């Protein structure tokens, strides 16, 4: 196991290097001069030249990349060009926010999607099945930003139950923290719940047709025991694979959801950084996101082994 982990860690180094080079090159290809954005309305040729010099924009691309990489290797991601805050600090501040939002969204997605999929499969072609399918379809077809605005209008403006936006850290006041994140987490988890529901349903349908299920029933086990202990366990392997893949979707979805609910997380950080051509922030955020994705896919691999003993070796 440790050897596998070590091997995967070593494999991550070229991947991350490639990601950092790609991001660096791609953002240089973006139209728009960072100096023009930073100079604002009162730009003068002198000010622009000064900004370009200060930010190394007047040096060659490889030199700019090496300058940035040198800092990163020493744990220094540099300063945000826009607000001059240390990027490592920004990442440390924003990452827990998105992780909290993502975790809550994922829990919500699993809590809705998996049971709904089981119910739909067990009650195949009943109105439970049709209802679950309709909800799934609605979940897949509803854009995050629209659902977010509708929920704000209904739950915050009309009913006044939850704050419409903002964020309170868990450590500061957990109740307020949950109150500010439950709506965005639901919006973010909604589409994933729909995907999980549909996959759980089809995996369960195929599992329920298997011989071992018939055998379990013949043994006289209760229907729910058959479903939960025998069918579900086998049906979960593809669902876990999908769940791991959807974690990436969570980060992508967070970009829009954080924007609508004004959650100061990773998504909002990168959107603002791209629009402001704040290159070092974009690079830092992408590097950390790539590292997290690698880490999460490793976790998913380990989870398969835990669920399916046939994958265990040695």
């Amino acid at each position, binding site marked *: 196991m440790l050897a596998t982990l070590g091997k995967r860690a070593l494999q991550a180094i070229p991947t991350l290097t490639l990601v950092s080079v790609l991001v660096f090159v791609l953002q240089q290809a973006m*139209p728009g*001069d960072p100096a023009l954005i930073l100079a604002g*309305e009162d730009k*003068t*040729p002198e000010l622009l030249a000064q900004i370009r010099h200060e930010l190394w924009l007047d040096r060659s691309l490889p030199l700019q990349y090496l300058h940035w990489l040198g800092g990163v290797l020493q744990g220094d991601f540099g300063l945000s060009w826009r607000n001059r805050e240390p990027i490592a600090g920004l990442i440390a501040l924003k990452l827990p926010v998105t992780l909290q939002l993502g975790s809550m969204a994922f829990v919500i997605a699993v809590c809705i999607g998996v049971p709904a999929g089981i119910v739909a499969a067990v009650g195949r072609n009943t109105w439970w099945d049709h209802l679950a399918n309709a909800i799934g379809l609605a979940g897949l077809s509803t854009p995050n930003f629209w659902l977010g605005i509708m929920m704000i209008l209904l739950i915050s403006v009309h009913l006044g139950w939850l704050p419409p*936006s903002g964020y309170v850290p868990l450590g500061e006041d957990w109740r307020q923290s949950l109150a500010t994140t439950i709506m965005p987490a639901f919006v973010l988890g909604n589409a994933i719940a729909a995907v999980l529901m549909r996959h759980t349903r089809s995996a369960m349908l195929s599992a329920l047709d298997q011989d071992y299920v018939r055998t379990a029933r013949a043994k006289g086990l209760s229907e729910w025991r058959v479903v939960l202990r025998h069918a579900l366990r086998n049906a979960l392997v593809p669902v876990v694979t999908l769940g791991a893949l959807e974690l990436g979707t969570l980060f992508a979805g967070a970009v829009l959801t954080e924007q609508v609910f*004004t959650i100061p997380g990773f998504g909002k950080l990168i959107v603002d950084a791209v*629009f402001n051509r704040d290159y070092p922030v974009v690079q830092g955020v992408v590097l950390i996101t790539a590292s997290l994705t690698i880490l999460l896919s490793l976790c998913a691999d380990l989870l398969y082994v835990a669920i399916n003993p046939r994958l265990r070796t040695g």
Partner: protein
Amino acid sequence: MRRILGLTALALLATTSLAQAQETPTQTLKIALREDADALDPTLARSYVGRIVFASMCDKLFDINEKLEIVPQLATGYAYEDPTTLRIDLRAGVKFHDGTTMDAEAVKYSLNRHLTMQGSGRRGELASVDSIEVAGPLTVKLHLKSPSSPLLAQLADRAGMILSAKAAEAAGKDFSLRPVCAGPFKFVERVAQDHITVERFPDYWNAKDIHFAKIVFQTIVDSTTRVANLRAGAVDLVESVVPSDVATVKADPKLKLITSPGLGYEGINFNVNHGPRASGPISKDARVRHAFDMAIDRDALNQVVFNGLFPATVQAVQTGSPYHAPGVEPKPRDLDGAKKLLAATGLPLPIKVTVNVPNSPTRIQAMEVVQAMVAEAGFDLKINAMEFATTLDAGDRGDFEAYLLAWSGRTDPDGNIWNFWHTGGPNNYPGYSNPDVDKALEDARKTSDVKERAALYAKAQIQELADLPINYLWSPQNIVGINAKLTGFVPVPDGLIRVQGMVLAK
């Protein structure tokens, strides 16, 4: 008599208690901003919303009032000893947030910092200043390279913000992480892209007008979400309500909508002489630009896109300013005139023009309305919606035929005109150059006589209208939504939020 005395004593006691109660406000004012501020350092800052935050934190030598008049703030008065020597007298007893005293040395330090610090956004604004002399503990003299009438207006903005020398020296380039000024509120914390919190500074020179313990500036980018927050009571004031949200705010009895004229404008820049793209008929022939202008019904545009809130304009300086050229007003649409003018050019129709538009729904809608209007005259207007930074870059490189540009506006007309019309001006995207206009703008900088300046700007404006490098279309208004319990908000044309005198009823 005794009873009267007793009542008087009671009244005095009540007044004193009230005054004491007022001295220690406990409420928090929550303000929603449309975007996150940039660096919180007056020398380096460049964003508009940053100016809103500074209005609560960093007092300036001068300020402007609702009539656009320059009024003293940290200064008590000024006088030109000669055209190139400006004497400024300072307010006594003003403290910075770190307890140090605001005096002539602090002013000299701050202005020099604005002039010399690497990356300073103020250097251009103070370009006319040659040196700063401490002429007394509370008197400074600014020696100018040449007479500069826009200077006072610059000192009524970030270039006039005075910083604690002690704090600035200690923090160096990290000053923006903990700014120390002499405003009514001192910096507490900033969570980037989320909020900035400031708390009341008890030693503020005008503390009696401050009725909040704290202000939280919350960044809420989406306009609908901003208004939803106001309706839900999560914020007390929303700057920049978009016209499409105005009806929602008006319909809510718990809210109040305040609209006031702004300083800015939006208009189409035609590339008249900026690189190879200045080769089409709209670039080469002023008659084509005039036909384009005549085909536009500005009032209809205002009604359709801006719910009648953004009045039509043809000038860079807005109505209400003494520098607004008299008699130069938008004309009714003249479609026949436009067609005749195009026919007179002998050019084959339709005339193809591409306009670069920053990707915002309202601006694109506005250009779609213009597209339909000018099509009737014989133009084939193509709308090229681009992300903001990309339009800016294309504008700077001259990679456009027409470019819809928004300008937030400045107090002094020079700030709305010079950089756009003067040959080689940094915002002169069209590549416009007219010696008569240049001369008028240069002369206007040298005189502080309002009438004389107004005449010079009017002359330049009339010439600009004849050449038409920029087709001014509408003047955005400052639209602010507030909690109806909030009183004392005074709208000032610069759109900044001055908390002095504002009270939130419980």
